[in-house]
């Protein structure tokens, strides 16, 4: 197990090197610079150059990259040019809303998807199956922002049950925190649910035809026990993979939904930073997001072993 983890972590190094070099080049090749963003439309060229010099952005790109990497190894992601605070601090501030939203959306997705998937598989070919699969197909095709805008108009503006946009940290109370996240959570969660439902259904179908299920039934076990204890447990591995992947997508920033609901998460941070050409933040966020994505995948792989004892990770 330990050897496996070490190997996986080591394989991270080339991934991160490629990602950081690529993003560094893309950012610096793109025209536009942070000094112009700070000084505004009417600033003169001379003023912009002066500020660039003060910010150290006139140095050769290789020198900027190496000094950035050296600082990253010391745990310093640099300072945001626009927000005038350390990048690590900015990321820490923006990651909590994203995490809260991702967890809520994932919970909504799982709560909807797993029962629906099981019902669809169990009642295969029935009206219930077709209806659920039809809805999930629709869900996969629907962009989350469209659902988000619809929810905002209907629940927020028309019924006025929930605030249309904004964010309150958990420290202002659980409900204060949750009420801003419910609508974006639903718009993200239901879309993810569509994918997980389809995965649950096909995975369950495969297992339900196997011999051990027939054995369990012929033993006279209660149908619920057959479904959940025997079938679902065996069918869970591929479902877990999908859940992991969707969670990765959610955590690394739901850019559009965050923008619509004005949630100051990672997605908003990277979007704003691109418009502001805030190089240090873009680099920092990309680095952190890559790390998170890889880590989530690693955790999912490790969970395989926990869920299904037949999987032995260190025997390769």
């Amino acid at each position, binding site marked *: 197990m330990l050897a496996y983890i070490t190997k996986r972590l080591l394989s991270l190094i080339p991934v991160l090197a490629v990602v950081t070099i690529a993003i560094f080049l893309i950012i610096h090749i*793109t*025209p*536009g*610079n942070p000094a*112009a*963003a*700070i*000084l*505004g*439309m*009417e*600033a*003169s*060229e001379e*003023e912009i150059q*002066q*500020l660039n010099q*003060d910010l150290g952005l006139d140095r050769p790109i290789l020198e900027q990259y190496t000094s950035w990497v050296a600082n990253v190894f010391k745990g310093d992601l640099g300072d945001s*040019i*626009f*927000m*005038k*605070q350390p990048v690590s601090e*900015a990321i820490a*501030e*923006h990651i909590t809303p994203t995490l809260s939203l991702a967890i809520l959306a994932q*919970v909504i997705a*799982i*709560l909807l998807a797993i029962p629906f998937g099981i019902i669809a598989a169990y009642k295969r070919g029935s009206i219930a199956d077709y209806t659920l699969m039809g809805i999930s197909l629709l869900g996969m095709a629907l962009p989350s922002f469209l659902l988000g*805008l619809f929810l905002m108009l209907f629940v*927020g*503006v028309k019924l*006025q*049950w*929930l*605030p*249309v*946009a*904004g*964010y309150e940290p958990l420290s202002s109370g*659980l*409900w204060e925190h*949750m*009420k801003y996240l*419910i609508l974006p959570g639903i718009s993200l969660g239901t879309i993810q649910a569509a994918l997980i439902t389809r995965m649950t259904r096909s995975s369950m179908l495969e297992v339900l035809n196997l011999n051990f299920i027939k054995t369990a039934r012929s033993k006279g076990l209660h149908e619920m026990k057959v479904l959940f204890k025997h079938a679902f447990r065996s069918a*869970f591995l591929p479902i877990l993979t999908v859940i992991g992947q969707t969670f990765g997508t959610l955590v690394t920033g739901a850019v559009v939904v965050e*923008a*619509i*609901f*004005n949630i*100051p998460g990672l997605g*908003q*941070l990277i979007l*704003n930073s691109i*418009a*502001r*050409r805030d190089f240090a933040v873009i680099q920092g966020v990309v680095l952190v997001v890559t790390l998170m994505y890889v880590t989530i995948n690693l955790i999912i792989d490790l969970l395989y072993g*926990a*869920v*299904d004892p037949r999987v032995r990770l260190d025997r390769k």
Partner: protein
Amino acid sequence: MKARKLGLLLSSIVLMLLIAACGNGSDPAAEGAAEDKGSEKQAEQQEYKDELNIALTAQPPTLDTALTVSAVALDTAGNIFEQLYTLNANYEPVPALAESVERSEDGLTYTFALRQGVNFHNGKEMTSEDVVASMNRWLVTSSRAKVLLTNAKFEAVDTYTVKLTVETPTSDVLILIASQAQFPSIMPKEIVDAAPADGIKEYIGTGPYKFQEWKQDQYIHLVRNDDYQQVSDAEPSGFDGRKEAPAKDLYFHFVTDHSTRIAGVKTGQYDVADSIPIESYDELAADNNINLLSFPGGALTAFFNTSEGLLKDVKIRQAILAAFNNEEIMLASFAKPDLYSLAPGYLNTNQVQWSTEAGAEYYNQSNPEKAKQLLQEAGYNGEEITLLTTKDYNEMYTATLVIQEQLRQIGMNVKVENFDFPTFLETKNDRSKWDIFVASTGYQLTPPQLLAVNPDWAGLDNETVKQALIDIRGAATPEAAKQEWEKLQGFLYEFASSTVIGHYNGVVATTKKLEGFELFEAPVVWNAKVAK
């Protein structure tokens, strides 16, 4: 076993969240009931909320007003900082932190008497050393001060008197000090001395609100300055007059998405929503709970490249000017005739001092035949010209597309290059890469501040223009200055270095419950309050 533990963990999380969601599900109803009680009381005695929520379009880069021209920054910072002089609703400079000013006979020195007993938010009294430090910093950081008040200097005379010396006598010194773009905030000397190149970090002024908190990408929170000393007892007018600060807390939210700003002002989450897009105008105008206010927003202007490429030839530029149908361009960009007007003047048409029709014969000609004729005379032979634009500003992009079509109609070969805004700005500075660009910019207060006469902006480097600016500033009377400006505006059209396309209104939406709100050059909120 592990799986079971995991399952248990997962299901308990789910259960917790469910309980949380259900347990609080009844809250909105309870809130509704509370509001009902509020409206019962309202009949007896009007009560006001102690906070005000304003939805801005973007997060400001800084609140250091001497550095930035960003409107969202100046809108917010105007509540924290004050100036020596400020503008009233008639665009006249009136004293604020200064009590009075005396101009010397030769027009080279201005002696300002400061108000006494004005305290900064940190409790320190404002004296001449703070004013001198703040103003001298502004003279070297503000791009306009640098050009228009070159080598000027502030000095302390005594604790409550400062003296400004300028190089040449001009008629616009006070208005420069009072203008809103990159305005000179008065702040404590220590903060000015410690200010880094990219802006001050501590926002301490003398205004009716104090800086409290800046939540990155969320909001700026200001609180009432309970020790605020009124700098004027007059009725509120523009930025002048009493500042009552009835709301204890001001929140300036950064809400980039316009549909979110609109939804927010409809539900009362925001009391003021800045920059309402034209396509939402009718929808909001039909809403009984919303007030729509419009104000002269600025001018949409087309700038021609007079220094490089095909348009270096004045004939070609005049041909293009002849082809322009401004009505068509404005209608496409601003959709509703109520929201724009056509006039050749570069400055705000409400500003009587500078409003002129000079150059009208070259404005909105819509004469393709004349244009073709001029192109032929210039020997135009199908060379490609480039229109530079950005989709980040919808009106600029739409106008560019209409211009492209109008120029095609006269047989020109026109290409549109579209970039995001930062790239647009950088490309604009390289004059080999474009021939025409359109920009929507807020109004300037005096002709020398105009982008259309600024060589840095679009590369117009012309001796006639430079001399005319000197004549305007050195004119003995306002009437003489206006005459000089009329000549210059006429020349700009004749030389075809740029053309105003039209004037547009900005639209701000507020809740009907908002009182004491004024829309001048910025949303003025220091006397605003919202009925409960």
